[in-house]
């Protein structure tokens, strides 16, 4: 029983310490934040698809 009490006290001390040191400071960047349209695509994917997409365009001149 005493052991459990000591354990709890230790945990509370630890939590208390975390809440004191848990501050995160955020500094605004100097450059303006530019939001590029909601395009989340890796260059790797684009390069992989480029040749295929080029063929699709060539094969369908009526819609491209």
């Amino acid at each position: 029983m005493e052991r459990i009490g000591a354990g709890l006290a230790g945990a509370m001390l630890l939590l208390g310490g975390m809440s004191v040191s848990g501050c995160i400071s955020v500094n605004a960047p100097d450059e303006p934040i530019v939001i590029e349209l909601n395009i989340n695509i890796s260059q790797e994917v684009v390069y992989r698809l480029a040749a295929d997409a080029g063929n699709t365009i060539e094969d369908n001149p009526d819609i491209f």
Partner: protein
Amino acid sequence: MNRTVKTVSRLIIGAAAAGLMLAVPASAQRDPAYDAARAAGQIGEQIDGYLGFVGSPDAALRALVEDINIKRRAAYAEKAKAANATLKDYAFTSGCLLIARTKPGEMYQGPDGSTWLKRDSGPPQRHPSCP
């Protein structure tokens, strides 16, 4: 006798080939109204791989472009599936290429996805993810 058979089979093959050539759709060309709207800058290539209106289109142009966009979407969907990619990624990649292929005087969407730019003699401004 053998010769006759050969000649006949050649004739059949020739006729079949001619039939195939006739079967190629004659509509594999741009609609002149589509070409004219592009050249006039009424429509432009968007970065998402579809056509957009630069101003307010009349009903006929709206219908024409919507029809093309539906067909583009179908083509993208089919090819994306075959390439194991998403429709959006495939369409975006196509948009990169289509903007690169615009002719001077035609309109295209800038990398911000909202501004319309007119293609000049230099290379177009494209999204940083474009190949």
